[in-house]
């Protein structure tokens, strides 16, 4: 009997979320098939690749970073370079300076820095906090206000601070909100539920369901992403149909393979190559399991990932 191919097209789809304004918007999501399954149905919006910069500066000990960014030092100059990276779809600004244990930059200063960047570049923007939940809520309030009308992604609201973040950045200033959970499917759904119960439309929510660097418990990440995709498409679970945005760099740059210098680990070869490999490998796995966008730091990683997506879709 001849093989009859039945397209696995679902009667459910991932929400479409538009980020940015004017001609340079990006649209995340919209697909009704499994990741990269273009043979089942067209995927209208390819996964996107974001390039991340930090307001605490660049690691210019890496020759590729030093060469790419040249003499750019200020956040605005760095941003202007970053948006020229081949394959970059959006710019992610990490406000590491806000960390109360380190520089403890004020929300107002963070907002001013983001505003300056947003005025200098026309690429869609994501804003990543410092990781301290209380401080992030205060920072996002000011940043969302300063970037009012820019339609940026605020990454992110968590269980501990979602009420403040959604009320301010989402409801008051109309930005897109990232709902972050740490590799916990039930919490991912719960967070989307309580966010939408606040009266904020699920159509304006993206999810960061967490990632781990490849080799650091990644199996659990993969099964989480799989399960979420299965629920969103297979069970038409509207509380899990938000596009997934995965900040990869914030995880991968902190593992020993990326920290160890060439003197400390002479057998491991070029540190820069390790950094790129770790970003690319982790981000590829995230994309294959259902991420609609990944965020990496190294321009070489951006180029590889963008090429990968464009070759496959």
């Amino acid at each position, binding site marked *: 009997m001849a093989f009859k191919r039945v397209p696995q097209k679902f009667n459910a789809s991932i929400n479409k979320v538009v980020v940015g304004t004017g001609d340079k918007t990006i649209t995340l999501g919209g697909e009704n098939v499994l990741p990269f399954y273009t043979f089942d149905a067209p995927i209208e919006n390819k996964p996107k690749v974001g390039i991340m910069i930090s307001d605490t500066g660049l690691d210019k000990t890496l020759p590729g970073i030093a060469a790419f960014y040249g003499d750019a030092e200020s956040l605005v100059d760095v941003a202007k370079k970053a948006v020229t990276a081949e394959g970059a779809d959006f710019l992610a600004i990490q406000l590491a300076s806000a960390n109360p244990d380190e520089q403890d930059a004020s929300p107002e200063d963070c907002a001013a820095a983001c505003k300056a960047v947003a005025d200098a570049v026309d690429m869609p923007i994501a804003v990543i906090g410092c990781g301290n939940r209380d401080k992030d809520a205060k920072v996002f309030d000011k940043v969302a206000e300063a970037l009012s009308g820019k339609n940026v992604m605020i990454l992110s609201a968590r269980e501990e601070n979602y009420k403040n973040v959604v009320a301010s950045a989402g409801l008051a200033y109309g930005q897109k909100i990232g709902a972050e959970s740490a590799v916990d*499917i*039930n*919490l991912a759904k719960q967070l989307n*539920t309580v966010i939408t119960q606040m009266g904020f439309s699920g159509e304006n929510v993206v999810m960061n369901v967490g990632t781990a660097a490849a080799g650091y418990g990644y199996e659990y990440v993969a099964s989480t992403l799989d399960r979420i995709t299965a629920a969103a498409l297979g*069970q038409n679970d509207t*509380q899990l149909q938000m596009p997934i945005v995965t900040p990869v760099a914030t995880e991968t740059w902190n593992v020993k393979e990326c920290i160890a210098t060439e003197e400390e680990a002479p057998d491991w070869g070029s540190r820069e190559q390790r950094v790129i490999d770790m970003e690319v490998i982790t981000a590829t796995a995230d994309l294959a399991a259902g991420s609609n966008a990944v965020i990496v730091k190294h321009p070489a990683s951006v180029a590889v990932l963008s090429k990968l997506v464009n070759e496959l879709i």
Partner: protein
Amino acid sequence: MAKFVTIGERLSTTAPAVNKAFSARDPEPILKRAKEQLDAGAVYLDVNIGPAETDGPELMQWVVKLLQGEFNNVPLALDTSNMKAIEAGIAVYNRDKGKPIVNSADASGRIEYINLAAANDAICIALCNGEGIAADNDERMGYLQVMLERGLELGMEPEDLWFDPLFLVIKGMQDKQLDVLNFIKDISDQGLNSTGGLSNNSNGMPKHVRPIMDSAMVAMAMMQGLTSAIVNPCDLRLMETIKSCDIIKNETLFADSYLEM
């Protein structure tokens, strides 16, 4: 499998207020009852207009347009002994949120309802009954096969026949309850869908007992593979039980607020 499908039963001519509203074409009480059921989590709404011998087609079209217009094309079960009224209702029915359900066929006098459903690409509730209540599960299975064959011959997909085992009243037929539950398993083992008027089991019981009995029955029936039921969605205990069973059966992902969804 999929999440349990609840069909709200509260738009029925057996309720005097609804009957009056249908006759008078008074939208307000109908919309109010519909909204209560949808807010409580009903997926489909049953529209029972009774025999409606004189004005059935016109009445059914009026109700279908009223409900779907007000509630974003809510899917409906069209419930009347007037076949022309069902056909008329389907003619104006919007399928965005699900096919219409024809309620209902049986293996005897109402077998033509399967033809009606097949001709209109509708789901058909198929009561596993002939004349009178089936004596045992062999007889029920015989009726099921007759209706399944009829549907398939007419080009229906098997999943569009929702077999009704006929829930029996416990007060009077207590010894038949396990038969009904076992028959649900028989339906499920064939990969077929099932539904039924669940609250029939608790008919005649004190009011405060019925939600408890209905909840126990639905939990046991869902364990046997029941895929849908015609229920009072405003029965909170029952709806909470159904949602909890869907979680245990892994039909929907748990979240702390699952009862609010």
